[in-house]
């Protein structure tokens, strides 16, 4: 899946599920966990990533802040997981 598509899907999910459809509220460099996604939304985000991209997000990967520090980093994380599964 092209990078732009992955990013678009992640953005759409975040905007529609956590920002009430306000695309302008999602800033490029904003850390996702604790800001856009509160603790009650973490599971929802992981479920989305697993279901939509067919990857498995390991618990230990949640402890690495960089993975979720921005939409771009999350996109890179998903891409890396997809590549490693091929």
């Amino acid at each position, binding site marked *: 899946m092209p990078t732009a598509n992955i990013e678009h899907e992640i953005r759409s999910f975040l905007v529609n599920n956590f920002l009430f459809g306000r695309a302008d509220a999602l800033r490029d460099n904003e850390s996702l966990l*604790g800001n856009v996604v509160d603790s009650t939304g*973490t*599971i929802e985000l*992981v479920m989305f990533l697993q279901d939509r991209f067919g990857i498995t997000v390991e618990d230990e990967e949640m*402890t690495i802040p960089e993975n979720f520090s921005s939409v771009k980093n999350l996109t890179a994380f998903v891409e890396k997981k997809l590549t490693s599964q091929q």
Partner: protein
Amino acid sequence: MNSIPWSVKIATLKNWHLRSLKRREYFAMSAFQEQLIGLQGRMASRAMAIEDDVPEILNSLPVRISDAVSYWAEHSPDRPALVEGSSTWTYRQLASSVIRTSAWLLASSVRPGDRVMLVCENCRAFVAILFALSDIDAWPVLVNARLSAREVGEIQNHCSARRVIYTTDASSQAAEHANRHGAIMENPVDWGTVAVGALNETAPEMNVPEPAQRVAALIYTSGTTGTPKGIMLSHRNLLFVAAVSARIRSLTPDDRLCGILPMSHAVGLSVVLLGTLLSGATLHLSPRFDPMTARTVLERDRITVMLGAPVIFSQFLQYAKLRALKVLRFPALRIISSSGAPLDSEIKSEVENLFGMVLHNGYGVTECSPNIASTRVEEPRTDTSVGRVFPGVEVKLIDRDGQPVANGEVGELLVRGPNVMKGYYRAPEETAAAIDAEGWFRTRDLARLEDGNLFIVGRAKELIVRSGFSVYPAEVESVLNSHPQVAQSAVIGQPVKGNEEVVAFVQLLPGSSLTVADLAEYSAQHLASYKRPSEILLVATMPATLTGKIMKDELRKMAQNLPVELNGPAPATKQMKL
């Protein structure tokens, strides 16, 4: 607040050291902790009522919360006090850092009695600055960085903060506030970078009162009403709750606690942070919670005690579903406990099955530092009672006329004891309305006592009187929450001509296809007709405070704006997004 001249640092260190040696409270601290160790040994050998020890605990409490580390820094200096990520701070390092942080604060024109705001999330910089402020008799004003710009601004204005310090390393939201306020980044000690706001030259200088009256933390709460109030908690308030809660859980230096509750709030501050450090145990700091990270920490760091809120334990249940796990076992874990919001019986039972251990329950309010009741390790409950009244604390239940209710009856809960706050900051009328001349604090919560165990029924002002019958929202919420596809619910009363109606807001679990009609039918199966919601609204999320309490005033405002037909049957579908 640039680099501190060494002359100031050395002078401050000397003063601190002399004061430590001379201070009566320092030795009292040693006495307290030695007594704690001795009593824990005795308790291990025979059953012992904690209540009997309260006078001794009160007599041996130190003056300042910062003294919590003194004893262990001297007697077990190399034991770990705080763990943050891959870094560990021993008691020696923590004590040393507090001294240098005190010097930095003094050099930054912070005076005894000044209010200094800490816009923070859990991290060791927060702990060092908190204790340093305590040591120089300034007032830490604890502000969760997740508050909005408006809320932070209101608090800053109300408390006339001399300085505002933002724990930017641990919190991107603190960094945002700092950036908006034009704060300067500094790295003055050994706990990373913080941002520091400009000096407020107009902050009035305050006299430092005698020790028992000194404020250890000013915590603003909007509760569920939306109006911020500054709650002044004294050193004695916080240390009393910390010491007794540590005793209840028999904490020892071998314990490792999970610091997931925000330390800018009362439970995280008194029970978790101070309770851990008074006991010489280790606190694993986490700025925010997610169940995946928490599971990793529980396993890797062999956590022995985890205190959380219902929303945290709900997240573990969702995590188990995600991973298709029937059990989650952590061999070192010996206590899990919930507080901060009502614990639903379904959640309690499911969590107990998942963890294979009792989920304890507790109740409190910030004004009571915050503990009022908790279940005891030796007396686990199968229901959702919040347990026995906290040792050393008195309670009474009164009716609407102020008269004591009959045994087992519901009444408004009043509390008196060493946990009750000094008052609301700059709000003498509100303080007088909350605490009467005899020292009784009105919780505004409805409760009943059964065999010495407390049950919280709901908020006094939330009681719904429908067609002359009393409807307790907590009961209706409990029924709705018991539906397997419901994440959470909130019930409010909606005034209509000559009556009051029951309106329920329901948040479904992700992927649920449940309809309002399904929920109405479910309510009809489990509730008397007068208790059933006449309106059910499905919402995407609930407006909640940072501790997970649903903000019912927000829901009331929304309900007022809805074109509802309260006396008609529940519509087949009705959805709104908050």
